[in-house]
């Protein structure tokens, strides 16, 4: 899939086609693109309302849920930028700088794709599950409560879904790592060993990365750090490398082998 990473990055002025709320905190924003947007699963866009004026100043990095004529993003309201997105109405113009970053690497045919999502981190994984199509991914999806599982229906429709919530309000009670251990145990006996794709809160990704490392399982994560530019010029998005020094999440990520990251440093 990585070939499409060479698609020309462009600032697209797109009108909001529709906004669908999922509970109070989550929204899917779907845009209208005359020219189809060539994006790969795992890539992101820098998104900003064209009428925002001087504040909020910076665009917000958002994983793409779809590309094509109807590019879309899933947002969770956490601050001013996402609050504005959550109030946008149809027709409102947005600027999307896309496609950005390194997509998920392809899953070799001799591997079983295993998707591990946390909360809003589900977005790039839904895209991936759609791409996997016939291969029917096994997904593990965790959240604090049942309300923190936007798009769990989509994931379920695309393969097998196992849910874990911290309060037990849906699926098994506890963290995704518990469900992941079970899945890894099962797959240990399978012909095709798993390859894990993971996106969620840092603490979750660190735990998943650690578990996969112990089990000798390939693990790729999608990094989330604050970003100013999204295309490699501000140096605002460093992530500590296991080899020392920093890599930049916007150009060397967001999708990256978990082993390259120094998870101790992600506080």
């Amino acid at each position, binding site marked *: 899939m990585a070939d499409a990473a060479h698609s020309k990055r462009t600032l697209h002025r797109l009108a909001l086609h529709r906004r669908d709320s999922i509970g109070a905190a989550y929204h899917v924003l779907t845009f209208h693109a005359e020219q189809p947007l060539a994006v790969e699963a795992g890539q992101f866009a820098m998104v900003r309302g064209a009428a925002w004026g*001087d504040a*909020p*100043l910076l665009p917000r990095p958002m994983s793409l849920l779809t590309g094509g004529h109807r590019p879309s993003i899933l947002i969770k309201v956490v601050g001013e930028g996402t609050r504005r997105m959550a109030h946008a109405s149809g027709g409102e113009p947005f600027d999307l700088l896309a496609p950005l970053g390194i997509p998920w690497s392809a899953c070799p045919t001799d591997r079983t794709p295993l998707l591990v999502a946390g909360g809003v981190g589900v977005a790039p994984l839904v895209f991936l599950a759609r791409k996997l199509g016939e291969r029917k991914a096994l997904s593990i999806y965790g959240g604090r409560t049942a309300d923190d599982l936007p798009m769990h229906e989509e994931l379920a429709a695309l393969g097998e879904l196992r849910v874990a919530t911290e309060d037990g309000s849906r699926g098994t009670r506890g963290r995704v790592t518990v469900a992941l251990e079970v899945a890894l145990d099962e797959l240990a006996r399978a012909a095709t060993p798993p390859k894990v794709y993971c996106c969620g809160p840092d603490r979750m990704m660190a735990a998943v990365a650690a578990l996969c490392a112990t089990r000798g399982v390939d693990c790729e994560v999608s990094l989330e750090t604050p970003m*100013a530019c999204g295309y490699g010029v501000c140096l605002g998005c460093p*992530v500590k490398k296991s080899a020392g020094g920093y890599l930049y999440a916007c150009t060397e990520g967001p999708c990256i082998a978990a082993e390259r990251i120094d998870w101790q440093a992600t506080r």
Partner: protein
Amino acid sequence: MNTASPAPSRAPIAREAVDLTVPIGGVTLKNPILTASGTFGYGLEYDDFYDVAELGGICSKGLSLEPRHGNAPERIAETAAGMLNAIGLANVGVEAFCKDKLPTLRKRGVAVVANVFATTVADFERLTRRLDGEEGITAIELNVSCPNVDKGGMEFGCDPAAAARVTEACRAATRLPLWVKMSPEAGEPKKVGLACQEAGADALTAINTIRGLSIDVHTWKPRLANATGGLSGPALKPIAIRLVWELSRAVTIPIIGIGGIARTEDAIEFMLAGASAVQVGTANFADPMAAKKVLEGLRDYCAARGLAARELIGKLDYVKR
């Protein structure tokens, strides 16, 4: 109560006929729109967007003698109409710049301003000497005003004597034009500017960021790992324009204006205040085409009024009452 008369203008001219060239201390830039150090990478990240050679020039990320990793994350935080950054001058180092970046930039044909940073006068001089031999450098910009490093940053830029020492040492090390980047935190910016002029600076760049602090009220921690960071963006613009105005009336060398420029009107404000050229910084983040758009808008503005770009410089219409 504002029915003020419009500014001087002549009959409109064709866009292509507009003279955008501006003289900056010995060199003539093809137009007054540059990009600011640290906000434009090494100028090689824009191939998808536009030909950077259309610009008046680009300023490299701040270069040091040795490569630098930079500060721990978080390095950036947004504030009202601005942002704080504490990148910590992460850069590839001057050698890698000359070896890996400059040859490509030379091919592009863009005017390159090498922004340099050091913690001692001797290292500033070494950097300058190292770059002096390189082809394809239009000017060296001395960053004596970086707020995000422990040593050697703003100290030089806040003290007229120290700023002069750096300038003098670098002056002896190169015949390339020397631009000195001013700190807005200097108590007496005019004195710093004058001292640099006397020490041989060809131009002053104004301004670098002002230190700010932003705190997460949930965790009680600073939002940046370095605690403070430099404030940039539109929030800063009126302060930057005021400093350009003050400096331009104190010194005779040209001023290059920076601070919150996102639109053509912003660039014009700086030029009217006394800037001979400007640099677009933070605005590149939201829109990689920002500098080019500012440039095209300037061409329109001048065409509509039949003006050459340099006719805007210092034309603020103000008489103290």
